[in-house]
């Protein structure tokens, strides 16, 4: 067994503005062991990205191995490490540890309609779910995608909306809490859009990610819309240091988000003894 604390070395091949304060980083893994480790990671898994000399932080993988040989991370500039990452340029070496955690059970979802609801940078871990479902289009029923952000300039992966909206048997909706002079689309909270779209719970699973407060209200509304807890999935985050179930930090009661999650069904979350 190799040293799980030793990152694989990667190189930044692209840095692109996704939204205000959010950048997409593309990372090419430099050695065979790293490429082998990431050969078949799954939607919902995460990895630690190192800015050497500053530290490392976990991010949901925003790509799929089928679509991209390189790894993609959406990074919001919020703390010391993410600021250091934002200061890096193409060609800079970075470290990657992973892939870690469980994943969305895409096989179990086969034959079912998917309702995907993401807010802000919380949309990033849902992008691989969408990519995976569209790449296995015949395996899934109707796909409903709801994207949201506080403002238009905080929406991520906007250049992919067209692809999603035009995919077969797929509907795509987007809303912002507050519009601007260029915005002609929906204005209002994601739950208002969710109420309007009114996704059917019949033979469906709902997958949501966003700020904790958004998840809370989206899940409440999903329940009102007839979704039972077993039909609702989300991906959680807690502060983490190791990603290996060792450092003790990311526990919610007896569960560790890093190894028992980050993906949990709402039915599982209802069993948690502690809040998060």
């Amino acid at each position, binding site marked *: *067994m190799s*040293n*799980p*604390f*030793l*990152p694989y*070395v990667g*190189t930044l091949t692209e840095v692109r503005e996704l939204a205000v304060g959010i950048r997409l980083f593309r990372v090419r893994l430099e050695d065979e062991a790293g490429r082998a480790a990431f050969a078949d990671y799954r939607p919902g898994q995460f990895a630690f990205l190192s800015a*050497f*000399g*500053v*530290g*490392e932080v976990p991010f949901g993988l925003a790509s799929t191995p089928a679509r991209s040989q390189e790894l993609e991370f959406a990074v919001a500039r*919020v*703390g010391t490490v*993410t600021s250091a990452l934002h200061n890096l340029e193409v*060609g*800079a*070496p970075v*470290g990657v540890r992973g892939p870690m955690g469980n994943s969305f059970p895409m096989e179990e979802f086969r034959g079912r309609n998917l309702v995907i609801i993401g807010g802000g940078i919380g949309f990033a871990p849902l992008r691989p779910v969408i990519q995976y479902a569209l790449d296995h289009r015949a395996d899934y029923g109707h796909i409903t995608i709801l994207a949201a952000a506080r403002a238009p300039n905080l929406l991520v992966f906007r250049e992919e909306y067209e692809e999603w909206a035009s995919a077969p048997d797929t509907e795509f909706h987007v809303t912002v809490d507050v519009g601007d002079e260029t915005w002609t689309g929906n204005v209002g909270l994601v739950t208002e859009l969710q109420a309007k779209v009114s996704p059917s719970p019949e033979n469906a699973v709902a997958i949501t990610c966003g*700020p*904790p407060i958004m998840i809370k209200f989206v899940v409440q509304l999903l329940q009102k819309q007839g979704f039972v807890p077993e039909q609702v999935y989300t991906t959680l*985050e*807690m*502060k983490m*240091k*190791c990603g*290996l*179930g*060792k*450092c*003790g*930090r*990311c*526990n*919610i*009661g*007896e569960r560790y988000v890093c190894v028992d999650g980050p993906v949990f069904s709402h039915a599982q979350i209802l069993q948690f*003894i*502690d*809040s*998060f």
Partner: protein
Amino acid sequence: MPQRLLSSEEVFAWVDSLGSDYRIIAPVHEGEGRFFLRRIGDAREVDLSVTRTVNSLKDFFFPPTETIVHIRRGKTNVQLEAPLPERPQLLFAVRPCDAASLTSMDALFLGEPADPYYGARRRQSILVGLACLEVPTPECFCTTVGGSPIGTTNLDLMLYRVPEGYIAEALSARGETLLEAASGRPVEPPFRPQAPELPAYPCPPQEDWVRVFTDSLWEELGERCLGCKICTYVCPTCYCFDIRDRGAGGRVERLRCWDACTSKHYSVEASGHDPRPTRGARLRNRFCHKYYYFPWRYHGTLLCSGCGRCVAACPVNIDLTEVLEEVAERAQAVRAGGQGN
């Protein structure tokens, strides 16, 4: 296994003879009745009148700070190297509770994915115990958590203090080899140690911790807690750690450092959100980790060896044995009241 009777002088000579092969860690008296486990250069430094050392043997398997990755970075390249500990060490005169604490640490650090740093130290360590034929301190409660004052778990050798000196008993093949280097004479018939009586506290099962999870007990304790974290630092099984980079320029190190779940900064996220925002919530996490979360994950293994250090060290007398009693009592009340808390 073989036993030998050694005088104090013979014990010290034996320790010195082992010093060429091992880094020796042993109890040293540092004044005011305070003993510490320290690396020694000479057996004369060892003080076997030791009660409980302030620090536990955790320091020598999982040090307060260690470099886990050496990072040499250029503008477009980087070289990483993991420094693994290579020196064999011999821990001398460790108490049975401390030796037993390694069972919890092994479950954590040797479980998949195995921690190479802890693993290297563990493989290269010899443990020589000093049995507690008399209860060393009023805070001791090892029997409550399944230990014994004369328990031999994880030990290669055990020393028993007797009027004539020390009886050394080999407990493993490695221990037997080491004992061959000692002088003294064989003990016939073999010495049979008697364990002293310890106070018995309740050890509430998982369901009881669930029953009192929302009890006011935690905030009551939280009001007293200073958040000083001394309980976690002296604890042989508190293992929460932080990872951070230190240094500037081309050479930096990635460090692993002890952290504490009772620290205000432990779980607060970059967004400012804190899932455990009060001292009470943090204390509950610490106690539940030891008696509920950890055993839940590791087949019933508790994350406590009953050494009593946290009880002795707490500046505001938050006493784990009292917490155990409170949890048992309040859980009993919940059960009796039928409020499925």
